[in-house]
């Protein structure tokens, strides 16, 4: 995996020529490369502290590192991405908002000291970015999942826990999936992860669609803030890269979400 990161780093200088991207306040060696790759060549992007990217001071577990991107202070958000520059898999979450607030929270794998970014695309196509560096020991992506070591991953595959909270400060959905989220970077275990997840309201309204990659931690947990109506349930449906499907319903009544 270190080899892959090095190869990407070598590729960066040539990519840098293409992008007229603003200077990176994080001084990441990969900024031009990741901006070009994930935002698109010539994309309009600016750094904006209203994109609030929050995570703990230390990566206690580099395989399960919590990251929250809150862009609720910004109007007309269409898409929120979490980007980890120096990971071999850089884009754990790509979230296209339906009827939802611009908020996503999850846990990711870290492979080394790296910038962790939130990237927000507005309806006009332009991007806003923010983030910070986090120090991490090696191996978040190249260590085998705990459930692979224990050998019980298949027994629990497809299990989903979750709740829907709703109240005056908005609704929040939390979903916790059992899934090994194999990166393909561990000996003899092919890449295998939850790929796609859609949330809809009871009336069929699209609440959001999340593309996940294997840089999301094993047994992914996802928090989103759909705009639900009082008493309204939320349905989720997703599939993994082997076509295994996950679906269920979160009934209203989890109580109001607390603000911290």
């Amino acid at each position: 995996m270190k080899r892959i990161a090095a190869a990407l780093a070598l590729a960066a200088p040539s990519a840098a020529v293409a992008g007229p991207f603003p200077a990176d306040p994080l001084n990441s060696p990969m900024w031009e490369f990741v901006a070009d790759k994930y935002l698109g060549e010539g994309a309009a992007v600016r750094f904006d502290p209203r994109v609030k990217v929050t995570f703990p001071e230390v990566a206690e577990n580099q395989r399960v590192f919590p990251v929250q991107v809150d862009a609720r202070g910004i109007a007309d958000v269409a898409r929120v991405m979490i980007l980890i520059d120096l990971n071999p898999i850089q884009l754990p979450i790509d979230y296209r908002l339906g009827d939802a607030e611009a908020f996503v929270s999850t846990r990711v794998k870290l492979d080394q000291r790296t910038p962790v970014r939130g990237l927000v695309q507005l309806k006009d196509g332009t991007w806003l970015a923010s983030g910070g560096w986090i120090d991490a020991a090696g191996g978040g992506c190249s260590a085998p999942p705990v459930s692979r070591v224990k050998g019980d991953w298949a027994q629990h595959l497809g299990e989903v826990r979750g709740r829907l909270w709703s109240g005056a400060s908005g609704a929040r959905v939390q979903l916790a999936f059992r899934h090994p989220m194999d990166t393909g970077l561990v000996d003899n275990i092919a890449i295998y992860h939850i790929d796609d997840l859609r949330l809809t309201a009871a009336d069929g309204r699209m609440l959001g669609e999340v593309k996940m990659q294997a840089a999301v931690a094993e047994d992914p947990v996802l928090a989103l803030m759909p705009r639900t109506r009082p008493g309204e349930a939320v349905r989720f449906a997703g599939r993994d890269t082997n076509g295994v499907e996950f679906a269920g319903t979160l009934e209203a009544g989890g109580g109001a979400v607390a603000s911290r």
Partner: protein
Amino acid sequence: MADRAWVIRGADTYIARDNGGAVANIALFATEAGAVLVDAGPSLRYGQALAKLARELTGEPVARVYLTHLHPDHTYGDAAFAPGTIAATPALAAELKREGPGFSDGMYRILGDWMRGTELHMPGHAVTAERETLGGRSFRLLALSGHSASDLAVLDERTGTLVAGDLVFHDRAPTTPHADLPKWRAALDTLKGLSHRRVVPGHGPLDPTPAAAIDQTRDWLDWLEGALTAAVRDGLDMVDAGLMPIPDRFARLKVARYELQRSVAHLYPALEAREWPRVDGR
């Protein structure tokens, strides 16, 4: 501390290069048969300094090193001692064999040159009795658990000094990487019921009273478990939970925010699995 008993204080913070990993407290007792240490510090270099200090203070070489639990800030200094002098419960010895070497990468990464030559020694003396007497000094040995799967507390009966390992923290937030909170609480009950005079906590200043540090540790653990459970029920994610307010009564606890965030990482997934219903319809 008292009658030929000393505590070698660790820095009340986390393992870092500027403290060489010397964050855990070590207790030292003189006996007619040689010096007795409880815990060995983080590295060969530290263990060697400890051996030298023990000889200077007691006039005798180290005859026994009791290890309280598996964490490397307490055990890795045993590299400086012969396996026959290193004492642990059979449960801890098995844990050290299984998991002890696994801390090495992380310790070298953080501490670099401080760790040079450090190789964890496996204990050669099994602690199976409830009491051991060395050179006229009796130590009561309590095999407990909760901070980790096997925690040893050592009571020096001559001075009433309880060396609690990491079952007790004092003015420094407790750590939970291998914690079992119900077992930890039961262990604290046991410790509180001993007739001791003072407590050497695993981290933080000596408690000259029998109960203050034990009560403070328990108060933190009770608050932590209640607050994290409420956070999971209220829909807070791990980031939110790590930023929750810490009650004023814990203001004197060093590195409280840091340990809260670590504890969120350790404890949150199990609480979510317990508190959230299955929604997959299977």
